[in-house]
């Protein structure tokens, strides 16, 4: 399988602090790659550098072999790259349906065309499908700000898939989600991966969730890759155990 995303020697420093220190990896099309590591290991900074939210201090990011280092997040999104954030990022004053339509509308025609086009940007049916897929039917007209945390998390993830991305980078999708909702989220993500062959890169602290979802795991510690491989192999890697538990 060809690599959809290639990260080469990516670095990011904040003053004297090196948050990401020469990280390289690639993700094959249709793969679900997990990125784990202790707090402060540079996972979210890595995401922000890949997605143009932060300018990397060095290194390169390639999408389908094309350099996209430092490209603006909105331009990357239009190339089919979507993301969620570590903290919930929804639009509380908009309804669930409006959040979803917003998440896809910028992919519909030109800016001027959207002004004179239909109010739902032609996404009404797609939004309904996504609402059904994430089982949010009874909440479709609720303000997103009125939803429970778990429901907001589902909406957050649903928004990332509204434009049918080829690559989705999910930052702690399971964070703060209860067990019932967690199983539902995992099931939904697997279904999207199977149906649309979307590629996922998932940062997660919930080991059970990430080990069950991902086909390959990358472990970061102090900004560097310390291990990479299948979930079972990574779980028993002494370097990983040491990174999480410290020296004995």
């Amino acid at each position, binding site marked *: 399988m060809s690599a959809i995303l290639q990260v080469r020697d990516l670095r990011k420093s904040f003053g004297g602090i090196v948050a990401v220190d020469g990280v390289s990896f690639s993700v094959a099309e249709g793969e679900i790659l997990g990125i784990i590591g202790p707090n402060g290991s540079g996972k979210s900074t890595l995401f922000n550098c890949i997605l143009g*939210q932060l300018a990397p201090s060095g290194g390169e990011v390639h999408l389908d072999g094309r350099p996209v280092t430092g490209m603006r997040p*909105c331009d990357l999104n239009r190339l089919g790259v979507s993301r969620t*954030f570590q903290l919930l990022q929804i*639009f509380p*004053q908009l309804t669930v349906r409006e959040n979803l339509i917003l998440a896809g509308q910028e992919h519909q025609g030109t*800016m001027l065309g959207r002004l004179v086009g239909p*109010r739902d940007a032609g996404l009404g049916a797609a939004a309904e499908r996504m609402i059904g897929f994430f089982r949010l039917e009874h909440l479709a007209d609720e303000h997103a700000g009125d939803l429970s945390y778990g429901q907001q998390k589902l909406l957050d993830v649903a928004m990332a898939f509204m434009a049918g991305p080829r690559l989705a980078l999910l930052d702690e999708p399971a964070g703060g989600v209860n067990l019932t909702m967690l199983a539902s989220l995992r099931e939904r993500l697997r279904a999207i991966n199977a149906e649309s062959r979307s590629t996922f890169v998932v940062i997660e602290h919930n080991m059970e969730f990430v080990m069950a979802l991902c086909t390959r795991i990358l472990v970061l510690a102090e900004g560097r890759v310390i291990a990479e491989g299948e979930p079972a192999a990574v779980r028993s890697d002494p370097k990983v155990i040491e990174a999480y538990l410290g020296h004995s």
Partner: protein
Amino acid sequence: MKNRRLAAGIVLAAAGVFLLVAPWGLKPYGIFILSMWAVMTIAAIGLNLTLGYAGQISLAQAAFVGIGAYITAWLTTRGWPFWPTYIFGGVSCFAVGWVLGYPALRVQHHYLAFVTLAFNTLVFLIFRNEEWLTGGIYGISNVPRPGVLGLSLNSPLAFYYFCLAHLALVSAATWWLIRSPWGRAFVALRENPIRALSLGVDTRRYTLVAFALGAGLGGISGAIYAPLVQFVDPTPFALGLSLNLLLMVVLGGSGYFFGPFLGAIVAVLLPEWLRFTQGYYLMGYAVLVILLMAFSPTGLLGLADRLTRPARRRTAGAAGVAPAAAAEGEGVR
């Protein structure tokens, strides 16, 4: 939901009829004040678009009203017909607003407020000091009133209806705009620009558009202000008007479609109604504004929204609908 729409329709129709008959029996000064309310509401609708929907603070709206007014006054007193000057005023302000939007790409909140405040001061100084162009403190007098389809608008009543027609057109266009995908993108820009950017919303372009559209409406408001007052001088376009327009938006309810209408009632009409208190009317007005802001920082419509939400939820619940279905589409209010 249907009942709520019906009630809203009835209230709107009643307000429309009231605005049509309100000037009947009023003296010219009363009609002038009502016309001024319509003109200022247009400027406040523009600011509400920039600030209320897109979340970009601007203390420069008076400058755009002034630019629109001066362009119309300058050209019409030199023999130009009204409509080209009106369009020129609006388009010029749109272009200047677009340029003024660039600082908003770098700074936000109170820093942006100071950038726009400085712009307002700069424009005011040009109006006052560049006498060869603006007439300086003497201004431009004898601004003619336009005619429409051969009808004269010289009488206060005819010009009031002209202002009202403009307000209706601007309101309809703005209503359509904020319900389009652009309106949703403006709200996204206001609520969470980082997430908006990650969803493909070009926040840079939408910020510029929000500034430009708000400024353009300011220019249109000014283009009607000039023939309404028939005299243009720098004083009305100082910072005081920008603050007053900001007050209208915030008092009425920032980000609410009808906020500027109510805010302009409080800021333009209320001081006139309170004149019976003679020397105390401005004090009374100030106390009223302080109380309103202290007890309802989301403005009059924010207060109404808060008070009626439980009832709307009960109604929706009783109808077997998801509770917030009663508030459908309120994200873009």
